[in-house]
């Protein structure tokens, strides 16, 4: 293995360096490498031990959910096993009342929960960033309208509205994701607006405007790259919030409906067994907690990594 980690031989350097007396000067520049913002942040994040461990666990969970079903012997549809079998070599988490393998169900539920959470986070971030930046940049009427919309959505209890919409339209996983996204963009919009308000006063925005850049170009080329830190952190934390929100909604029976499933649905179907057959409850419970916990830690690591005041990282 030693040869794999061997650094590039110094002999290769002069080949790329310009010929002549300037070679040694360029060598000095090379040793104090200039790093882009992205490289600095990535470097800090990679050194954040807790965040990296969490990322590892999360990757394992994603593999469990998406690759697991391809390998595992039982399918989530297969209800041929006996009812309520205790954990064994065949069924590490036992079977449910109708004789389905719990591990197979858990893989499928995790898959749906992760998909829902990702859709919610992406959509909520997109809506929040666009509306927040527009409000902060254009101000006036647009600002007032967007902020009143935020106020409106914050006073409507999302759980009731989500339940009504899902009951009316359908309880498929993407519908649940769409409805949850509708109620999770406000925080991001507020943060983006606040940052835009201060960034929009800076010279570089004025310069861009003087060069004739339009509103969208200024927002996406000049403003968004400057607040990528808080956007990324909040998008990450929204994933964790969405996992919990979806589980809660499905738990009270107003979220994802069969044939789609989720971790919330699995818990709600099996929780009466928690004392007699704890494995049916603790499996899905642990997966929910692990997803949400690891994402919260990753978000924390990202926050530290993006913080310009941070010089060294404490894990």
């Amino acid at each position, binding site marked *: 293995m030693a040869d794999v980690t061997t650094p590039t031989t110094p002999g290769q350097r002069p080949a790329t360096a310009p010929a002549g007396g300037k070679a040694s000067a360029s060598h000095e520049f090379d040793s104090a490498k200039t790093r882009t913002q992205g490289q600095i942040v990535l470097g800090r994040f990679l050194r954040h031990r807790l965040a990296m461990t969490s990322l590892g666990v999360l990757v394992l969970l994603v593999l469990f959910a998406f690759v697991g079903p391809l390998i595992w012997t039982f399918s989530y549809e297969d209800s041929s096993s006996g009812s309520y079998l205790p954990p064994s070599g065949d069924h590490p988490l036992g079977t449910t009342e109708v004789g389905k393998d719990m591990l197979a169900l858990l893989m499928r539920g995790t898959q749906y929960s992760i998909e829902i959470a990702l859709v919610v986070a992406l959509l909520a971030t997109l809506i929040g960033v666009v509306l927040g930046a527009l409000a902060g940049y254009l101000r006036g009427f647009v600002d007032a309208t967007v902020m009143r919309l935020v106020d*409106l959505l914050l006073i409507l209890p999302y759980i009731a509205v989500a339940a*009504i919409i899902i009951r*009316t339209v359908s309880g498929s996983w993407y519908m649940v994701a769409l409805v949850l996204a509708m109620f999770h963009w406000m925080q991001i919009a507020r943060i983006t607006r606040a940052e835009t308000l201060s960034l929009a006063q800076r010279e570089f925005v004025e310069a861009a405007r003087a060069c004739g850049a339009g509103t969208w170009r200024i927002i996406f080329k000049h403003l968004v790259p400057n607040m990528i830190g808080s956007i990324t952190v909040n998008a990450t934390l929204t994933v964790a919030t969405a996992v919990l929100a979806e589980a809660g909604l499905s738990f009270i029976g107003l979220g994802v409906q069969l044939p789609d499933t989720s971790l919330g649905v699995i818990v709600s179907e099996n929780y009466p067994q928690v004392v007699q057959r704890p494995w049916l409850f603790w499996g899905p419970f642990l997966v929910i907690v692990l997803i949400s916990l690891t994402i919260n830690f990753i978000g924390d690591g990202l926050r530290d990594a993006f913080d310009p005041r941070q010089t060294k990282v404490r894990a």
Partner: protein
Amino acid sequence: MIRYIIRRLLIAIPILLVGTFLSFVLVASLGDPLAELRSKPGVTEADVQALAQSLQLDRPIVARYWSWLTNFVQGDWGTSVALGSARADVYSVVTDALVVTAQLVIFAQVLALVLGVAVGVLAAVRQYSIFDYTATSLAFLAFSMPVFCVAIILKSYGIEFNNLLTSVGADRWLTTAGPPTGGFSGGFGEVVFKYTGTFLLPTLSLMLISFAAYSRFQRASMLETLHSDYVRTARAKGLSQGRVIFRHAFRNALIPVVTLAALNIGQVFTGAIMTEQVFGWNGMGSVLVNAVRQYDPNMLMGWLVVVAISVVVFNLVADVLYAYLDPRIRLG
């Protein structure tokens, strides 16, 4: 201050109006509330028509909204149309449920606030100590647990605990069915016993997540004030450590947390719905779940408006508290 409160309430009115109108349209699109009634044997078309007329299902939606609104502000919140509800009065059902839920929410919030602030301050004063690390890990863990799962765990092991009590000949203590409608009876000791037995587990499960948020927030805000100039000045004057922490740092560090607690009320309400579902309480949670399942439009509207108004009021409380606690902020 009075002028500010009045102005804020006036701003809230149009938002509430738009909110209720959108909810009304949403609720109206939920489906036919009389479908179940129609399919029932022995119900004549005339009965259905009479009920449809009384619900004004034949009129355009704006007219229906207007008549709902005028009745609503006069205190007539309509009746339930769900089968088996005996046309219950929405106002009394929702307010009864609100009282049950409010008790749970208030207990949990007060407990979470007191514990969260205490733990947060201690963790900040002893930053990077074992206590700090433990509190941080526990907060992250609590933050990542769904409320209903905590409730399920507490409930099932609470029942086990009861069985243990009865097996040694004692009375059952923890109850999981919610407070009795008639209040608690018996001597003082007995009432306290029953009251704590009823509220302990639901309150614990609901407070956990708020506690986690408050302790984290309090820690951050306390650290910020501890590093501020005026605290350094206070130390330089030679004040004792306790006086610096409590008189100078703590009082200022409290401001953001109090505000957060008032703003958090919507989320806590959602948590209360889950908790009630697990423990089988007849609070706002079961009213919502039943109303959605049975297409009960008046009940849903009553529910939505009560929750929306509570959120508006608590947001206002947050702003007023903020101005009251922090003299640098002047509301006008």
